[in-house]
């Protein structure tokens, strides 16, 4: 069943099925791109509503709906980051951790900062590859790059993070 098509025709059940199937990975992606829960939720909402618009360019023969939705989330996140001029970085929020988890929370904040400091395309590629376990060919479609370019950006992102997060490797060992 072509859910986006049914949703566009007004089928609420199809629309909600699409939402239920995809909203959580899309939210994770948006959150890790923007660093803001509120922005991520707005982006996810906007992403599903965009599927309903007459000018929506989604074509089920050209791409999976998941790939298309991830592409929208990326574009929307980019727009917000440009508008906020990197404000997302400071808005990465973490709830207070209980004693004993302080180190973990610190590490979490450091990872978030390091990932968010990556250049935008490297960041998107790394998040999709590492956190979403998306195949490289699909990542290439989401970010609009050739497969080779995706591989090189992923490698650069990993190398950059290894440098930035090197000091935490020993902390992680200590936590275990």
């Amino acid at each position, binding site marked *: 069943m072509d859910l986006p098509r049914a949703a566009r025709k007004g089928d609420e059940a199809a629309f909600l099925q699409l939402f239920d199937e995809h909203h959580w990975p899309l939210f994770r992606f948006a959150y890790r791109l923007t660093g803001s829960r509120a922005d991520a939720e707005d982006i996810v909402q906007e992403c599903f509503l965009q599927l309903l618009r007459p000018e929506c360019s989604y074509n089920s023969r050209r791409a999976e709906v998941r790939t298309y939705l991830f592409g929208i989330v990326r574009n929307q996140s980019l727009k917000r980051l440009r508008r906020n001029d990197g404000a997302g970085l400071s808005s990465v929020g973490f709830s207070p951790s209980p004693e004993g988890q302080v180190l973990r929370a610190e590490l979490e904040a450091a990872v978030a900062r390091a990932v968010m400091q990556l250049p935008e395309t490297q960041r998107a590629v790394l998040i999709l590859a590492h956190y979403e376990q998306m195949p490289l060919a699909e990542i290439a479609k989401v970010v609009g790059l050739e497969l080779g370019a995706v591989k090189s950006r992923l490698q650069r992102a990993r190398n950059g993070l290894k440098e930035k997060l090197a000091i935490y490797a020993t902390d*992680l060992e200590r936590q275990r």
Partner: protein
Amino acid sequence: MNDQELKDILDAWDVPPVTGSLRQNVRARFAASLERELPSKRWGGWFTAKIAAVTVVCLLALGLFVNEAVPQVAKMDFLLLNVPFTVDSEFTRYADDGSSSVEMYTTSFTHNGYEVLLSRSFPDQPFRTGLSQVMDWIGLLMFDISLPFSKGSGKQETARTAFIKNGCTASGQIVSTGEAILGYRTVVIHYNLPDDPRATLWMAPDLACFGLKFIIEKKQSDGTFHLLQTRRAIRVNLRQ
């Protein structure tokens, strides 16, 4: 640090849960979008929808009849405008994977620096084509009728004439010689559009600087350009 250590460190970054209201909000906005899309539900149900459908079908039938009965060349004989030539163009859009599809064909002409649309057609979309041709024809008639009453800006016309006389260049613009298109020599100009795509336009000095080719490209992060859209002339129809 090895790959496994990096993976373990990256896994330390968790994502908070979505708020419970997200699903409700999306659902509410879905319902609201339906309300906007289907005015018939708000304004009296099927009766309004039927009237609208009949009107559209009648307009379409009339448009198709006019379109079939009166050829484009003959249509222009009704106009007050002097149209020395028309150009048929093809618009193509390119996907991220490099595949392309023809979006639209147009026939248009130029008047005082403005491109005036004579007709459009959309491949495999007869309904949209029919409707567009009705709208284009009405738009053209309105434009033509309004001409005697429109006060043209003298400065604008002088600048336009100078632009054509100078071989499609204005002071300060850098142009280069382009390839001949359909037998017409062209000059090329590059400029940037909002959001940073690059546009390139091929204008024909012998056709009042009509744009015979236009491409829009987006710069990739590796410095190369990816083609987004093209428009190219496929025929120039000179009128007696």
